């Protein structure tokens, strides 16, 4: 059997063993997300505009990640709303930045892998860079949104009469607790995977100046920064969505 299949089966087994039904559905969401990601590449390769594809696929990926991973529906709905809002804000940041910084496509370091390939494929690589950036931030956004929404809904369940101002303070304080560790997830997630590139840079004695202007390095750092911005924005946005929802529920009760 293929290594990927075996590893996949082990992961599925472990997730079901430890997570029960939640674990099994979480594994399913992973499978779906893979399918969606591949679908996104295929759609773009068929000529669909990258921006449209990333928005549509992004919306669905967020839904799968949030609703399949979180059993608590009270928390999942506002988390999804907040994640969508943040995704739209991020697109508004990512699109102009990618057009400005032009860190799309490939660099000289990729030459070996590109041998014999036709590069003039008629697909805008800036669009592809935007898609990459958006999709890579979604997981972090979803995770942070769930954490905050779950924390706040817990607080609301215990103190249903909490004033909205107090709820906002609580939201930010939960955000402060998760931000440090989330940063580390992102930092290691991105840079751990690029160890080889950094060894390349150091081994060939790239100057600091060349590194910070290097296409691949810039593209990678940008993805980390976009994810960070996304996670930071999730904190007030999720809290805001929760307070709006809370206010409506209080009104209903009166």
């Amino acid at each position, binding site marked *: 059997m293929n290594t990927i299949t075996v590893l996949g089966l082990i*992961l599925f087994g472990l997730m079901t063993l430890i997570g029960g039904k*939640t*674990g099994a559905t979480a594994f399913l969401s992973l499978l779906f997300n893979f399918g969606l990601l591949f679908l996104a590449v295929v759609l773009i390769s068929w000529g669909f505009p990258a921006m449209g594809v990333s928005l549509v696929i992004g919306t669905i990926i967020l839904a799968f990640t949030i609703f399949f*991973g979180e059993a608590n529906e009270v928390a999942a709905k506002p988390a999804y709303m907040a994640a969508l809002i943040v995704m739209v804000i991020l697109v508004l940041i990512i699109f102009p930045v990618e057009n400005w910084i032009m860190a799309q496509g490939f660099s000289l370091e990729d030459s070996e892998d590109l041998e014999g390939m036709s590069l003039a494929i008629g697909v805008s690589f800036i669009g592809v860079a935007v898609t990459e950036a958006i*999709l890579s931030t979604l997981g972090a956004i979803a995770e942070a949104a769930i954490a905050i929404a779950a924390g706040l809904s817990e607080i609301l369940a215990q103190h249903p009469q909490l004033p909205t101002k107090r709820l906002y303070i609580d939201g930010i304080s939960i955000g402060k607790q998760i931000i440090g560790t989330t940063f580390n997830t992102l930092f290691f*997630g991105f840079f751990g*995977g690029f160890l080889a590139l950094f060894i390349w840079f*150091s*081994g060939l004695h790239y100057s600091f100046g060349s590194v910070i202007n290097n296409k691949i390095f810039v593209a990678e750092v940008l993805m980390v920064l976009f994810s960070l911005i996304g996670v*930071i924005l999730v904190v007030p946005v999720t809290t805001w969505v929760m307070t709006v929802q809370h206010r409506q529920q209080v009104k209903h009760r009166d």
Partner: protein
Amino acid sequence: MVIVLGLIGVGLTRINAGLYHQTVAQVTHVQTTDRNTTTDEFENKDKTLVQMVTVRVLNKAHRGRTYRIKNTYTRSGAMDQPYRVGDQVFLRIPSSQHNAVTIQGLKRDTALAFVAWLALALLLLIMRFSGLMAFLSVALNAVLFYAAIQIDLATNGGHIYLLFGVLAVLFAVLTLWLVLGFSRQMVVTLGATVAGTGLAVIISLIVFAVTHERGVTYESMQYVTQVPRPLFLVETVLGSLGAVMDESTDIVASLFQLKTERPDIAPRQVFKSGIQIGRSIMGPLINVLFLIFMADTFAMTLLYLRNGNSWGYTFTMNMSLGMVQSLISGIGIVLAIPVASWLASRLMPKEVVA
């Protein structure tokens, strides 16, 4: 205050040409001279354009001189790009008069600094002091990371497992110490992180041995200058380390909280609660890493597809390594849950009762 200073810093990168060893120039005028439609062997239509770019040199010996340079680029811009008035670029000016002056690439530091400033400003505005600590921990880790790469190069990758194994533990100690301070809680979290990641590595090595690494295409790994297999494993461990720490921190913190609220709780119950908490965290967390690992492969995958490769071959050559990485990280993330819960239930201070 800090935020305004940062913005001034971003502005300064426009006039930092003097700091560079390379020749920096600013584009003052651009004129498109030719455009052609091209079709490659896979029926991909693209446009090739030629522009005459006028640049004025900003530093070094040729400062103040202007050059007119021909730049050919495609609409899709995989390896090339158009230049716009106001862009700053790096120039190669050959010493002999016969060779043409060429543009080596765009100077991207201003835009990069701007986005970094935006992230930092938001961080400080919303998170205040906690934001600063988070930033500090990332900065310190970056320094460690840099040091480890230097050592790795000095030893020519000979002790890569040992070196990065030690580094991974150091990363965990430093990060958790900054987040939690030095306490029993920190030790428990650290134990869970190291054990979870270690178990995942052991399991994957066994799977590798049993399946003879079929479908793991090390030859498709990018930017490799050393033996790919150890490099790949180290990348995977480092990549998942942050996520496992993230999760262990959450679980252990909640369990210690629980113990403070209900001092008489039995270890068995603590273990159960830990699993409960872990359940809802693991799914989203695995997805975080999965999306990060996979998004990187996007451009190359697209290129493969448009160059007439089948879906299967494209997946194997581009996405399979990311997939293996995601799966191993996923196993680490799941295993850390029982380990963290068990350690917390055993090592929780009993004297809290008093």
